[in-house]
């Protein structure tokens, strides 16, 4: 057992209101620069939809992530990069997205409104490209399909619809006019990062202490392989500086004990951040496991921070007590391992992403009245005027949900490598907690009923209470349990602090002032 620690995240999708505050917070701090205007290290997508960059999930286009090596038993290789492909394609990378796959950044000539001479017509502010400065026709934006879930252009081109039957797709097309959800995405700071593996210069690395994946800007030489290799398209090429950039998980903030900007600002309070301990010896094996057990194998890598054997091994590896303590209180550990509520996004890309999502229950509950009319619909189901309604009946664990509503398969394609049972398990738990709370607050569900429902979902009342508390009531310090960074120890390893003694407070940025020869 080789214990390492990682600062990891959980996003609770039922709570996301799609306000994009997270994206703006990130943009303001990190990417409001020339060459980076088009980058959204944090972006929020409407699902079903094509996302940003367009159809990023379709690896037949972008060739990102890992795949099982053909012929090789338990081996994986990069789909569109790697030593051979990377070096052969170094002059021209055929799998690299171009700016139009994202969007051409633009602004408006606002000054024209103010400085226009008096004329018969209203002056207009024309859109201009932020690259060339010329007028452009805006065709695309980072959240162009925001809330446009029913459209031909976006929702129906969602790559996750691929292996849904025509009937299921039809059901969705009806539904999508009312049901969609938001998917906020940042870099997953993967355990088996494809971006790191693809970089010919070796500029990208994972930090041992907290697992943040970073690009060393001084070593990056614009070979552009990471842009292809990251299946989540979260490594971006800065066209101005000729260097690639990506989400840095606000490491300067984390080191100082603050939550990353996107998480701190999240209006829906959907985001949780905490330490996970994992076994680094088994990473390769987990990344190469069979499709059916991929998710399980990844979750198995995560270690119980209260297990004495794990604690001993962690101390052996020099993990600080404060980090261990943070791991024991980690909200992420609770969601992912204790309650088994959260899943990684697209585990089939085999990068072992360390950002987990609690799947959304609400869109699954949405339904159309006509379809359900002759089926059993409980009287407490909320009924709206038009033909749409939300089945909020909580008598049955599933009510009519089992019948094709928002297809489970679609969700399973996103979060569990197509495993519908795994997905259903999570949704059942979410539903069970709702029923339990209904029993507590409204009281129209008997205790017997609620206990039975919890049991079916594999929860206890105590767990349900804890889930409810962390989901709905959690305060800042409950949602973000940030370990101390211990930079002081790092500094002592890097520099002979005794040398600087007696001269601190007066010197240069990199060194103490020294007199000339």
């Amino acid at each position, binding site marked *: 057992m080789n214990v390492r620690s990682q600062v990891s995240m959980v996003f609770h999708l039922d709570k996301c209101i799609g306000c994009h505050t997270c994206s703006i917070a990130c943009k303001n701090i990190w990417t409001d620069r020339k060459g980076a205007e088009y980058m959204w290290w944090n972006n929020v997508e409407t699902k079903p939809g094509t996302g940003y960059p367009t159809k990023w999930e379709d690896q037949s286009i972008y060739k990102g992530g890992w795949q099982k090596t053909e012929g090789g038993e338990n081996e994986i290789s990069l789909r569109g990069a790697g030593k051979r492909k990377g070096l052969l394609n170094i002059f021209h990378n055929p799998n690299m997205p171009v700016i139009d796959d994202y969007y051409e950044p633009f602004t408006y000539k606002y000054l024209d409104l103010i400085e226009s001479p008096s004329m018969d017509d209203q002056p207009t502010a024309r859109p201009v490209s932020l690259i060339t400065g010329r007028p452009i026709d805006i065709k695309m934006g980072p959240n162009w399909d925001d809330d446009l879930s029913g459209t031909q252009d976006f929702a129906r081109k969602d790559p996750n619809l691929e292996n849904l039957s025509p009937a299921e797709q039809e059901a969705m097309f009806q539904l999508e006019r009312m049901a969609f959800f938001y998917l906020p995405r940042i870099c997953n700071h993967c355990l088996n990062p494809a971006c*790191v593996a693809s970089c010919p210069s070796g500029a*990208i690395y994972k930090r041992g202490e907290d697992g943040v994946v970073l690009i060393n800007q001084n070593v990056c030489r614009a070979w552009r392989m990471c842009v292809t290799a990251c299946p989540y398209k979260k490594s971006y090429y800065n*066209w101005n500086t*000729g260097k690639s950039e990506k989400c840095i998980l606000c490491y300067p903030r984390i080191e100082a004990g603050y939550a990353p900007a996107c998480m701190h600002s999240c209006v829906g309070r959907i985001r949780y951040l905490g330490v996970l301990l994992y076994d680094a010896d088994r990473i390769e094996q987990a990344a190469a496991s069979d499709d059916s057990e991929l998710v399980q194998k990844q979750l198995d890598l995560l270690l119980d921070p209260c297990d004495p054997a794990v604690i001993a091994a962690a101390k052996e590896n*020099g993990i600080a007590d404060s980090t261990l303590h943070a791991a024991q209180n980690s909200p992420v550990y609770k969601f992912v391992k204790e309650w088994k509520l959260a899943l990684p996004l697209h585990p089939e890309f085999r990068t072992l992403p360390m950002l987990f999502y609690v799947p959304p229950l609400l869109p699954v509950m949405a339904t159309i009245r006509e379809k359900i009319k002759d089926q059993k619909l409980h009287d407490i189901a909320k009924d709206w005027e038009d033909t749409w309604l939300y089945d909020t009946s909580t008598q049955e664990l599933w009510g009519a949900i089992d019948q094709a509503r928002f297809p489970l398969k679609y969700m399973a394609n996103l979060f569990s490598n197509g495993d519908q049972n795994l997905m259903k398990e999570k949704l059942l738990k979410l539903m069970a907690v709702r029923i339990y709370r209904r029993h507590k607050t409204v009281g129209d569900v008997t205790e017997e009923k609620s206990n039975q429902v919890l049991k079916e979902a594999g929860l206890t009342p105590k767990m349900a209470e804890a889930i409810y508390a962390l989901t709905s009531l959690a305060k800042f310090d409950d949602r973000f349990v940030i370990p101390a960074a211990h930079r002081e120890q*790092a500094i002592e390893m890097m520099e002979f602090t005794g040398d600087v003694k007696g001269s601190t407070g007066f010197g240069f940025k990199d060194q103490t002032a020294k007199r000339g020869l």
Partner: protein
Amino acid sequence: MNTFFFVIYPYLAFFIFCVGFVYRYKQTGFQVSSLSSQFLESRTLYWGVMLFHWGIMVVFLGHLLAFLFPKGQLLWNTHPIRLILLEVTGFTFGLLVFVGLIFLILRRFISKKVFTVTSKMDFALEFLLLAQVILGCWIAVGYRWGSSWFAADLSPYLWSLVLFQPKIKAVSAMPYVIQFHIIGAFTILLLIPFTRLVHFLVAPFHYIWRPYQRVMWNWDPKKVRSAETVWTVTRPRNN
């Protein structure tokens, strides 16, 4: 005049190249990049960049081999078929470089996006390379057989420079076209540290040997607080 161009200038160019590269690498490491513009325009680039790079690699290799092994070169050329084969190959790849370069130059003017990321130095460099390639192809056609007289006359000249006993009699007698080609070559060498050409000095061959994953520590977690090592200064490898 000849002494300046064929003795002083080469040494000067080489000196500036060395100092310039070390300076750029150490002081402005952030600026060492291939500055790829594929992100802004990919299709024309494919043709330009592929023809140019593969062409120039072969051509450069040809020059290098003739410089390193002039005897072997002459031996190879004793057979006319082999000589013609070599000359035709070299000329073809020279043409590829030319065509590729034309694509690249036109692309910089036609694509507005690429134009905005083009510096004056990029244009200067591209036209210098173009001139060099045209001269090279002209020499290959007009002054036969280059591979032989390069090995017989130019290799000794270059070696004389390397050994610090410059002998410029042979070059001084060469036609102007060839002389310009030589001066052009040293000019390119001189410019390498100050243009995007630096990227070929940092070609990532070490990728072949390194393991795929890289994990870095700000400090060696096992050594923290260990009494023997706490005072040893180990600089971190990142940043």
